[in-house]
């Protein structure tokens, strides 16, 4: 059975160059980067070379990059680190974020609420984009942090970080952005984005799992989450995951080299996929702003189709995708992101995410376009809610007489 992987927002395959870059550091390059001797020096040099690659990727400076265990830790560090270190005249603290953040930000915000920090969750419009004015309106005298994700993992929509960053700077408040999904798909420049903090995750850009980074602009007050040795300039203790960091650096380098053509190639494939779906399947909707989104993501609602059933049926036919985000699969609650753009629970439960990557080809898209209509037709035939006349025409997997939306 031919397998097609369209779940790149969940994770990506390791690029061959990344694997090659990593292997020496899993074998003969085993030194502890903090050791004084030759082994340690080699490892430390490799870590710093990787850091330089991330610096170039973000247009930042070496002292501003902290390697972490991944995007989740980076988000936790940004939120808890900044909020804990902040001092306000009255002692009360407030944070502004959005309703569509990844759980690594949302649940950290909830944890901060339990500690007495007030949090405002600004909503988004039906196309999944936050309004910078609403962020501005949410700011209070004791706001110590604003966190808005760059690209949303379920919809792919890109938030107006530059403008929000300007607002943040006017008020002297640090802006954090979770750029885990945007990295490698659209260019990142921490100065153009006007951010003080930015989270990255290696395994979303063809690097290994278990490593990420937090960009911390010079001058940003931040408390550590992990105490121990003085690693990462005293900001994040823990023996460096040298092989992982090297892989991350290689992945960042690779992303920079492909940032010219890859986004267009991905957009072409994604558009082909969406066009094919719209042509062959009725009662379908693409969610989120069609222009202001990363080029690889497609959030599709198939009416009268149980998303969970679709994902399993598709998987059994070799097509890998997901409903919402990987972290929330199997749960009863509809996606908070889809709810935030105004979807009713039954629509959210009928929504599927297809996310493309570097290793997807046109053949993959065409293969997916054979499986998807079949699965949708099969599920609709079984659905008691699907209109009778439509069910009969769907027997051949062909388009209905009524024009698809």
């Amino acid at each position: 059975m031919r397998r097609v992987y369209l779940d790149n927002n969940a994770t990506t395959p390791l690029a061959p160059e990344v694997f090659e870059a990593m292997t020496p550091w899993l074998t003969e390059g085993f030194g502890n980067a903090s050791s004084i001797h030759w082994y340690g020096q080699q490892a430390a040099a490799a870590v710093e070379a990787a850091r330089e690659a991330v610096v170039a990727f973000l247009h930042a400076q070496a002292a501003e990059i902290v390697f972490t265990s991944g995007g989740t830790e980076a988000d936790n560090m940004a939120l808890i680190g900044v909020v804990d270190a902040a001092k306000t005249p009255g002692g009360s603290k407030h944070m502004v974020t959005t309703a569509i953040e990844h759980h690594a930000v949302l649940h950290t915000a909830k944890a901060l609420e339990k500690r007495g920090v007030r949090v405002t969750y600004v909503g988004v419009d039906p196309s999944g984009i936050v309004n910078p004015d609403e962020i501005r309106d949410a700011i209070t005298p004791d706001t110590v942090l604003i966190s808005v994700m760059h690209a949303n993992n379920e919809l792919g929509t890109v938030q107006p970080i530059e403008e929000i960053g300007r607002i943040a700077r006017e008020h002297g408040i640090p802006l954090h952005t979770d750029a885990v999904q945007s990295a490698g798909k659209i260019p990142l420049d921490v100065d153009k984005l006007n951010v003080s903090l930015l989270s990255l995750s290696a395994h979303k850009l063809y690097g290994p799992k278990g490593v990420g980074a937090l960009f911390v602009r010079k001058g940003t007050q931040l408390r550590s989450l992990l105490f121990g040795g003085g690693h990462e300039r005293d900001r994040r203790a823990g023996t460096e995951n040298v092989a992982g960091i090297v892989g991350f650096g290689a992945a960042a380098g690779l992303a920079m080299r492909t940032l010219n053509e890859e986004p267009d190639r991905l957009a072409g494939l994604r558009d082909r996929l969406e066009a094919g779906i719209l042509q062959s399947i009725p009662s379908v909707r693409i969610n989120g702003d069609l222009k202001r989104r990363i080029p690889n993501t497609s959030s599709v609602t198939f009416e009268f189709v149980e998303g969970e059933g679709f994902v399993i049926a598709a998987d059994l036919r070799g097509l890998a995708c997901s409903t919402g985000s990987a972290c929330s699969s199997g749960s009863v609650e509809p996606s908070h992101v889809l709810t935030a753009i105004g979807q009713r629970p039954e629509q959210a439960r009928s929504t599927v995410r297809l996310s493309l990557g570097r290793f997807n080809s046109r053949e993959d898209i065409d293969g997916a376009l054979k499986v998807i209509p079949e699965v949708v037709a099969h599920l609709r035939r079984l659905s008691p809610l699907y209109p009778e006349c439509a069910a009969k025409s769907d027997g051949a997997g062909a388009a209905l007489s009524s024009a698809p939306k």
Partner: protein
Amino acid sequence: MTIAVAMSGGVDSSTAAAILAGQNSVDAGGEQLRVVGLTMQLWNQRRLPVLQGGNQSDVRPGQASGRCCSLDDVYDARRVANFLGIPYYVVNYERQFEETVVRPFVEQYLAGETPIPCSRCNTEIKFEQFVRTALSIGADSIATGHYARVRRDEAAGRYRLFAAVDPSKDQSYFLFGLTQEQLSRALFPLGEMTKEQVRRIARERRLPVAEKPESQEICFVPKGSYRDFIDAYLGEQGEERDDQGGEIVLSDGRVLGRHQGVHNFTVGQRKGLGFATGSPLYVIEIDRAHNRVVVGANDELSKKSCRVRDVNWIRLCCEGQTVEARVKIRNKHVAAPARVTTQPGGEALVEFTDPQRAITPGQAAVFYDEDEVLGGGWIAEAF
């Protein structure tokens, strides 16, 4: 042909999956038999934390275990599926389970009956929801670890249900409500085996759960304490009832004491009456209309007949007739000879040859002809 196996993480369903996965057979269409394992997430064991012996902040993830369908069981089912090399998914039916099994369970107790949620779970969830899921993912049939047998009767054009070969494990009692459509989709790989054989297969195949002890209780009621469950559930729903107290009376109407809610009692119960008397007293009847619990001597517990409602006939034999059958009024009851007469409104009158002890409204009356399940329904009243 694709078969969706319902895997609970227990020895029975794991062995059923292993038997099917090991078959390597090819179906009539020349296609390889394909087995897919699924676990149904039915009830969040951490949902009523007061039952865990703590409050909300005490419950740690992964802590709830000890009965079916906990996080540990999902983990076990996944391990078995990985071991067998079959695809594995978890599907969430918490909403449907609460609506069609848990709520009716609570309400039946409050109405003075003793429900069997497992039968309802079979007809509403395992052989309905799960079948729908199975069909939607492209499977043709489902398989479970139930000890029962189903056979196709070509001549009659129907499916027939039989007790399992091992009477100590037979679960056909809980399957009386299955429709023809449901039976047509069901496979029971363990029906022809004894429990010992199943354990032996599990060991021979080195299944990760081969030595796992069985869970015997109702899956959503911890430690079999259904009273605590009902109180906790009503509390969570904001439906506590303070005014449940009523009288405990003898059959001649004399008042002996008070009870705190009819749901604390079941027919045949001896303990928990709150007082000691000279000779043993048993709950004979729960009079919901007057919120009374009627108690009496042992011999008052045995009755000769009962009215059965919502009868499901698996074998088309008996509409508008009286048949001789053996009838079970509890899973652990030995089927007793009786006449079953169909009544209008989908009901039946069961008249036992000998009086039967503690015929309990809410339980099922299942009619057998030898080892075949003719049908069954819910006991409405005994007299």
